[in-house]
């Protein structure tokens, strides 16, 4: 199974994250307290959900650069909806968020599926379009905390067994995605479409349609994050979640999801997101100059990529013939 080989990497990531936590807590005593850890998890929840969507897309050999713009548009839309109709029940609002996200994702997916346009081009286009639409929708105005209804703001913050509902939502999404990826036909089709698209066609899998569904999943999750984001930070404006498209890709890469498709796991994506979350949360706490944060995250991403590549290579079989379609390792230096 795919996981067997990768188990090693994921355990390693867990260890690295644990070591990081330990190191940080020597610098800031409060850091490794359960309370703060649950804070970090809670704070990373949105990235985790986005990374799972991104993972689904990357597995099919595509990329979704529009996730953050999707978050912004959906967030703005539900924020405005809530502000103008404070009495709408929350489930309905969440449903609207999921649907808008799914529609935006489906748009990406349709271009990729029906017209065969490379996903990076499509989502590069929709990235600007969706965020632009958020601007057009709101005229650039903000939706502020006092305009939002109590349930809209408070529900994700309710504590349940010590963890806010937001964190639980992430956990549920992780579980659902795990089931989808490992136990459903769609999950297998996603791995197959990315691992070897030609072979997938021969196996009766519609690669285009599989990619479409991957984009719908990614979009739906982004839509959910749109609501969660606005509720969590109690504000909606055009620039929300700026830069998250790259963060979600980075989380996947750190988690060992191959950008060439077909390789990676749910656990990897979650751990990759947590890794970034820990770093992001730790830097302000351990008083690292805010100016070095960016350089540090960059360095970490590069290190993770190098490390992952090393892993891949060392994993070689007894016979060095193990050449994935991805790269020809033994070829002359």
């Amino acid at each position: 199974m795919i996981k067997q080989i990768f188990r090693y990497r994921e355990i390693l990531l867990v260890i690295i994250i644990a070591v990081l936590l330990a190191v940080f807590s020597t610098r800031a005593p409060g850091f490794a307290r359960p309370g703060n850890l649950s804070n970090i998890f809670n704070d990373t929840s949105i990235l985790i959900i986005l990374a799972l969507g991104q993972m689904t897309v990357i597995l099919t050999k595509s990329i979704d650069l529009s996730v953050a713009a999707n978050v912004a548009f959906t967030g703005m839309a539900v924020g405005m909806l809530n502000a103008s109709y404070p009495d709408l029940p929350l489930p309905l609002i969440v449903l609207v968020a999921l649907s808008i996200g799914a529609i935006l994702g489906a748009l990406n997916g349709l271009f990729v599926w029906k017209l065969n346009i490379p996903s990076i081009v499509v989502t590069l286009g929709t990235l600007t379009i969706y965020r632009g639409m958020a601007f057009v929708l709101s005229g650039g105005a903000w939706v502020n905390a006092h305009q939002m209804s109590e349930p809209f703001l408070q529900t994700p913050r309710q504590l349940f067994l010590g963890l806010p509902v937001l964190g639980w939502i992430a956990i549920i999404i992780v579980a659902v995605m795990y089931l989808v990826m490992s136990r459903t036909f769609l999950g297998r089709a996603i791995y197959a479409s990315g691992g070897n698209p030609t072979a997938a066609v021969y196996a009766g899998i519609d690669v285009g349609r599989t990619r479409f569904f991957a984009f719908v999943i990614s979009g739906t999750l982004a839509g959910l994050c749109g609501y969660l984001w606005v509720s969590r930070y109690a504000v909606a404006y055009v620039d929300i979640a700026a830069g998250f498209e790259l963060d979600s890709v980075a989380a996947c890469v750190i988690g060992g999801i191959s950008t060439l498709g077909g390789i990676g796991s749910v656990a990897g994506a979650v751990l990759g997101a947590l890794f970034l979350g820990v770093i992001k949360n730790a830097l302000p706490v351990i008083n690292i100059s805010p100016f070095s944060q960016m350089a540090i995250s960059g360095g970490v991403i590069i290190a993770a990529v190098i490390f992952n590549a090393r892993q891949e290579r060392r994993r070689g079989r007894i016979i060095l013939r193990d050449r994935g379609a991805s790269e020809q390792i033994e070829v002359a230096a």
Partner: protein
Amino acid sequence: MNQTAALMPIPDMPLLEMRGISKSFPGVKALNDVNIALYAGKVTALIGENGAGKSTLVKILTGIYSCDEGEIHVDGAPVAFANAQDAIDVGVTAIHQETVLFDELSVAENIFIGHAPKSRLGLVNWKAVNARALALLHSLESNIDPRIRLKDLSIAQRHLVAIARALSVDARIVIMDEPTAALSRKEVDDLFQIVKRLKAQGKAILFISHKFDEVYEIADHYAVFRDGKAVGSGELAGVEQNEIVKLMVGRSVEHAFPKVDIALGTTVFAVENYTHPTEFRDISFELRKGEIFGIYGLVGAGRSEICQSFFGITQPSSGKLKLDGKEITVRSPGEAINAGIVYVPEERGRHGAVLQLPIYQNVSLPSLARTSRSGFLNAAAEFALARKYAERFDLRAAALSVPVGTLSGGNQQKVVIGKWLATQPKILILDEPTKGIDIGSKAAVHAFISELAGEGLSIIMVSSELPEIMGMSDRVLVMREGLSAGIFERDSLSPETLVRAATGNASV
């Protein structure tokens, strides 16, 4: 898999019939009004030159391409396939010419992808999948663990998985597009056992191969394609090979290998104790001017690897190479080409040609330094170079500016060989030069190899085909599991000795 006799249709009504099938690609009419019928319990061999349209027919029959015209009938009822799944649902399954499997998935997943057994909740039940895969592999006399990843299998094992995959579908029509191209004789025998069993179960089988001995061994019916048209079909029994060849190429073809005996010159290339950490060990031989040096072995014996190390693709850990008596090190293909050593790779689509680039650009690619002036391209010189080799090989193409990918397999191979000859090498390494090439082109390639040797070129030729190795080589190195199993002189070559050396088994 529990096909009962009750399901067997009446023998003389075809189980599957394709009528008036036509299919065009931009610039090519791949199939033109083709009719073909498959019968239950019978093997139909489909024969034709490269590019005759055989694989195209297979792809139409499995729902990968849709045909422009024509209809498919199963059990007398018309069917339409929008995608591969539709074909599977109707009971058509295929082993395709290219290995179309998933490196990153497990063997069991590869076998059952698309039709895995599900639990009540609609979730895939992996336990059941693994168990069924195991049973299926056992029935193929294989003990591959269904849980390991395909990546970790050898080429031959992958072919078995592909076969198991085809059989995992409870199909009534089984198509095999050159299934034996990568198999050793032993594995071919195993495969034929399976084919016979399928026959006995009443399945209709379409078998595609360029090897006539196999066709005669297994097939009941034949169908011949030429240039996208069906030009003949019928019962195979009593039909002479020559008649089929005539149908196929429109003329009779000399069967003998045109090896001309020439006086061998001095040693030009010497390999001493060449060793790679994992691929091969202690290989030594010498190559003389004008010699054709064969390397024989089973798939995975390490023949390609050693040749690639001469070409600088892989690096040996110890050992020496001498060219014209001088010791050389080859660290990259560029250095090898400069030294006059070239390698025609086995996988032409992946390693041999840039399929999207035009023919002339492919031919000139390794020779750019010569066709250009101080780094600037010279299209006229490139065309001239390409034309020279296109004519020499009787290449069939609409123009020299069409992408190589639009050519048939055999014509692609001609471009690849031409590309390497254009560098005017001293030593030519050919890895399976006629793999998947039709009989007409094959004879041409063989004649050409002889001609080159006659011109004083030294040739190393890797091949899995005994007749080719025996017909063409002056001497043969047999490899087994990365080691030399002996070097045999031309007059001591016999199928028995070679196979015994290659398998290390006296009883094959």
